[in-house]
């Protein structure tokens, strides 16, 4: 599904990602750990093609196609969706406007979207300006609604659990599990995901297949999510990487 080869990325002439490699197969959910500033969000936004992230070398392949040079909306139309950590508020543009744009792209019928709006407790927010005055949990629920009705094959989730109370993480986890077909057999799952999480809360609700630790702009170690998360919690990122090398 997603293949990143030897990717080096600069932002304002500063190198943020260094020779990064990553492979996510269809139906797989990967989780990305790493300290602040290690380049996790940069990786996500580079996959999306935001222009301030300049690819100096390497390729990004999506479903076998080289998308490294494509503008953001072309990548999105090919089946990549994103849940932003801190999306901007846009005055005068209603949540319903954005949801309709996503829904039309995803080919999701209106009644199906309405059900999700209700499930995510967003009915009252549809007429409001997108993200304007939304609380932490409301932002995440609104982001999740948009990305699910967009119906992408690869979904990038930037901290879906930060600034959210337990009740909301549980709801977000439930919707994500369903969307990522976690109830089906592995061979029947199609959608893939890359999840960034700081706290790891979301892992209590969404089962993931593989974990990576990012350090200083590259993936320093990979393994099973449980094992990696346990080491980070008990010994910090450095020790976790030491452990990987052993």
């Amino acid at each position, binding site marked *: 599904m997603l293949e990143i080869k030897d990717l080096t990325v600069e932002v304002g002439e500063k190198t943020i990602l260094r020779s990064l490699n990553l492979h996510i197969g269809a139906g797989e959910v990967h989780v990305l750990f790493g300290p602040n500033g290690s380049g996790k969000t940069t990786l996500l936004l580079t996959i*999306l093609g*935001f222009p301030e992230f300049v690819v100096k070398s390497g390729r990004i392949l999506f479903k076998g196609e080289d998308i490294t040079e494509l*503008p*953001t*909306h072309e990548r*999105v*139309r090919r089946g990549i969706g*994103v849940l*932003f950590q801190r*999306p*901007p508020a*846009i*005055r*005068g*543009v*209603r949540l319903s*406007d*954005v949801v309709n*744009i*996503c829904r039309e*792209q995803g080919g999701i019928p209106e009644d199906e979207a309405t059900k999700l709006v209700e499930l995510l407790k967003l009915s009252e927010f549809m007429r409001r*300006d997108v993200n304007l005055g939304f609380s932490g949990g409301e932002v995440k629920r609104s982001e999740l609604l*948009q990305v699910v009705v*967009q119906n992408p094959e690869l979904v990038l989730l930037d901290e879906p659990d930060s600034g959210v109370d337990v009740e909301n993480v549980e709801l977000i986890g439930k919707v994500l599990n369903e969307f990522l077909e976690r109830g089906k057999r592995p061979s029947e799952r199609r959608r893939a995901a890359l999840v960034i999480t700081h706290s790891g809360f979301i892992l209590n609700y969404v089962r993931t297949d593989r974990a990576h630790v990012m350090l200083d702009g590259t993936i320093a170690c990979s393994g099973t999510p449980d094992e990696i998360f346990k080491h980070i919690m008990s010994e910090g990122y450095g020790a976790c990487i030491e452990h990987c090398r052993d």
Partner: protein
Amino acid sequence: MSEELKKRARKALNKPPTLGGDVDVSEYVERLRKMKEVPPEFDAAVYQNALLSVGVDPEAKERSGTFIQCDHAVVAAQAAQEGLEVMSSVEALEKYEWLKDYWWRAVPVDLDKFTALAEVEQTHGYFIRAKPRAKIIMPVQSCLLITKAVAQNVHNIIIAEEDSELHIITGCVAAHAADALHVGVSEFYVKKNAKITFTMVHNWTSSVEVRPRTGIVIEENGTFISNYICMSPVKNLQTYPTAHCVGKDASATFQSILYAKGDSKMDVGSRAVLAAKGAKAEIISRAAATDKASIVARGDLRGEAHGVKGHLECRGLLLSDAASIASIPELNARAHDVELSHEAAVGKIAEEEIRYLMARGLSEEEATSLIIKGFLSLDIKGLPPQLADATKRMIQLVAEQAL
């Protein structure tokens, strides 16, 4: 009385305006005088699209009355509801002796050369009146159409008598690209417990000079709401409607949506004089400028009595490096216990917002256009729900054509 007004007007015929630059009116007036000599002609079918572009329905469906003026001639004036009057203001002045008590009471005749011109060289204008207790829920529509290179100097009088309600949708439109001058004097009188909403769409061309002069007098517990939309090019436009809240608890709301492109120059303000206890006012404007256009967005709140409240909000969106927007809010308090506030912000579209929408699948152009449309959309206040929806749709349509 009338001679006295004419005398004051003639004295002011060369008095330059304080804002928006001077206009040499002589040629326009010359052409107008010549045109008055030939009988007017008007074919509604020819101008159907022009009328529709400013929200005027030629079939007058869901309208309580219609007034259409083409250049210097009134071509339609009818009221379809009990308690409503719609006619030429010249005709009304002949019909009602008392109307002289309203003539130039909300706007001084010698304010500048434009008000003077409207008195000395008047070309009709409308008289719309809701009688006491009349609830005119369906809107009255009016259209001032310019089709030739002339000066159109209208004088409008709108009266909502005690306990009445009146909604007006008015469109001013230039159907040809001829050089023209539009001077529109409008005097509104909102009596005790009465309400007027006034939604005006301007659809000019880049060769029309526009100088509306508007005054509103609001009595006890009266409500005046103005929604002003101008999104088409204009050579230059300067206006500064002033609401005088003279009665206890009188209220005034101004909302303006401006989109300036090409070489358009717009200088648009709204002023509320809060002169009685409990009076309140809200002034909201959205201004977007592109190409080489310039907008000056002004607002002025004057607190002159105890316990008055006013808020002013002006947002500007600059869409090109050669365009300019100046926001000039003024607050003047002349009594204690006055609550006046303002917020103003002028800036460009945030890249972050464009990227966000691109991540939802929109191209850069589509994202930019959605953000501009969103910026220019305002919730219409104070209208009956059905009328509010229709008005909002009309504004969206105007925005889509403009963008």
